[in-house]
């Protein structure tokens, strides 16, 4: 709202310009709240966390002493943290691969002119709904669905003769991981579909028309036109999902608290437990956070670079 239109006469222009100069500083004022909040709640905590990772602050202690890289050595040797790292990746991969495949498929169907599906709006909203429900409610829903021995899923399996005795899902490492991954998948595929669909809709229609004229099949135009031009948006989805996935916390924590056998202990549940339970090792939690930050950065760069070198040309032509 701060900008004014400039179509006016020459004399008026000068006056307006003078005035506009005055208005400009309001821009800073309007921006100030963001920067203040950013400095206070993002910038400062981030550097304070990095600082803490070099100290021995834990428990009731109120003063921090610098201990060098000891915390990093300890966390490297911490078997539970290593397990948390591998758990996080397992959970992310198992949820992301089906998610992107399904999202692509749905996005393709929703945008396909030939299929011309009815009720797209309805289904899109439906698919997006899980994302609106808070994680706490989702965790409660799933823990009662899969509860042992008399949860609905167990009763269904029993009455269908699929199993002989009820399955204790949350006692099984594989099942618990699958359920957590499935919830992540179920909560986020709608969102991914919408983002991918936006990407597809952003592709110039003429390209598809030309392909059709040349006799390309639907599948061909999807693989030869849509997919390559979707790389930037896929990259975006991949990176945001990776960052989100590395920070997976609410579902595993609320569902089983990291169990059984520490199978869904993720990096963030580890950090949370370090900071707020047991010996309240703020230093360890801070160190793990810094490691997480480094890992996120490294993986994002890796993904980003591998995409860019192969398709830098196409990015230029791609979505705006």
């Amino acid at each position, binding site marked *: 709202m701060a900008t004014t239109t400039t179509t006016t006469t020459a004399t008026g222009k000068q006056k307006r310009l003078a005035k506009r100069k005055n208005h400009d500083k309001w821009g800073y004022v309007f921006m100030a709240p963001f920067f203040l909040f950013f400095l206070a709640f993002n910038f400062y905590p981030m550097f304070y966390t990095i600082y803490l990772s070099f100290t021995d602050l834990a428990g*009731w202690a*109120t003063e921090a002493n610098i201990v060098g890289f000891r915390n990093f050595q*300890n966390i490297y040797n*911490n*078997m*539970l*943290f290593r397990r948390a790292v591998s758990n996080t990746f397992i959970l992310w991969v198992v949820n992301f691969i089906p998610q992107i495949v399904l999202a692509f498929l749905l996005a393709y169907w929703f945008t396909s002119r030939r299929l011309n599906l009815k009720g*797209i*709006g*309805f289904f*899109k*909203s*439906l698919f*997006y*709904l899980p994302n*609106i*429900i*808070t994680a*706490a*409610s989702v965790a*409660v829903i799933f823990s009662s669905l899969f*509860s042992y*021995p*008399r949860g609905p899923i167990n009763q269904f399996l029993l009455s269908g003769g699929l199993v002989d005795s009820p399955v*204790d899902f949350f*006692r099984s490492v594989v099942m618990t991981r699958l359920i957590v991954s499935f919830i992540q998948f179920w909560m986020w595929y709608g969102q991914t579909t919408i983002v991918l669909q936006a990407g597809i809709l952003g592709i110039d229609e003429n390209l598809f028309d030309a392909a059709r004229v040349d006799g390309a099949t639907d599948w061909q135009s999807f693989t030869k036109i849509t997919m390559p031009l979707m790389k930037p948006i896929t990259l975006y989805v991949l990176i945001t999902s990776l960052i989100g996935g590395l920070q997976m916390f609410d579902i595993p*924590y*609320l569902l089983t*608290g990291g*169990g*059984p*056998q*520490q199978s869904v202990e993720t990096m963030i549940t*580890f950090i949370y*437990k*370090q900071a*707020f*339970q*047991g*010996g*309240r*090792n703020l230093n*360890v939690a801070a160190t793990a956070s810094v490691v997480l930050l480094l890992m996120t950065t490294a993986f994002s760069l890796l993904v980003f670079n591998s995409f860019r070198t192969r398709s830098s040309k196409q990015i230029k032509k791609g979505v705006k």
Partner: protein
Amino acid sequence: MIKKRLLLGLTTLSALALVACGNGDTGAGGDAGDTGDTGDNGSEEGEVLETEDGEEFEAPTTGGAGVLDVWTFTDEAQTMINDYYLEEFSDLGYEINISIVPTEEFETQLDPVFNTDSAPDVIFAEQAFVKKYVESGMLVDLSQYDSLMEGAENTYDYVVDIGTQEDGTFVMNSWQTTPGAFFYRQDLASEHLGIESEDEMQEAIGDWDGFLDTARELRDATDGSVYMISGRGDLAHPYYMSREQGWVVDNQLVIDEQIYELMETARTMVEEGLMMDADPQGEEYFAGMNGDEILGYSLPTWGMHFWLVPNGDQTAGNWRMVTGPEPYFRGGTWIGITQTSDMQDEAAHLIEYLTTSENFMRAWAEDTGDVVSHQGVVDEVRGDYEMEFLGGQNHYDAFAEGIERIDGSIITEYDQSIGGAFDDLALTPYSKGEMELEEALDAFRMEVQSLYPDIQVD
């Protein structure tokens, strides 16, 4: 056109969802508000927070100078202060501001402000984490208050022991004792086991071998349709209390002989179908109190009042209590004063009343049936009870019997975290046969090492 319709559809749906969520929230708030609202005498409209389970509660507050701030997790505190303390001392000249925080959020709320000026004056702490605050060295030494100390001479030893730091400084006291017992269904026992009285029952299950034999007998007599106990929760507490040493001694993790015994007993009972293997305090656990599938539960004083009686309305009158294989205790709430408090004398006055006043103790015992920490009062009132729920048995007398044998030295500041890790990572998977003993204990050690890097685990 399609896009427009889509957008319209999306917005209506999300609007609907939002409305639905909004309704749900206010509903829950209404429920939770009942307990929280009345507590905050001194505060205005408080900030509303949520527990992990989505239950709402008001953020705890401190009222500033001239207000005695009390942080607790039990609404009993509110009743004790409003209906007893303030009745007796109506002209204190200062306000008491009680904040009730759900137990699972209590430490998260208190720890960041503990030992700062924003800390409350008086804190309540439960057995699971009481030692954490006792050993913190940031609570006021109660021995400077002569009348309180005089009164505390009547307090049961184990209660004082738990409220005392390792160096002997007495910092927290309690109004209650929480001995445990084994509650069982007399009707099922006489039908399937031919046991007709509490004495016979106690004789049968007086030690763990007898307990297991009785469980097998019950299984054979009923073709496995009636279980001895609900699950490992009924074994864990009696076993914990029979340990020689607490979880940590001299900065070293101790896995007591009784811990191995507990793991073996639990596994045997699962393998042989002697217990239902329901999760402690889970759906089946509570459902069993009204059904005919579970013979008994190990419960403390408050467990009977808060869990068994409300969930056993259809089986009321059929329950009896005995000591069981091992005398034990579970839970209990201690009260202390923070060193940062600017109203320490006033706080001590409150604690003296709640934990040592004979008149209050008597009234509280008579009104609620709580087993109090004052020996004299317990001895005085223990003869006068008759509980219909227990078929007229005198529960007070039976509980009082157990108090003398309680050893408080087993409680450490690590109990909550280490006990929780043990149950999750060792006891549960081993009892269910998912892991072998050493594998399970290794996972447990790894978690303890991670939670407390300074503790030696092996």
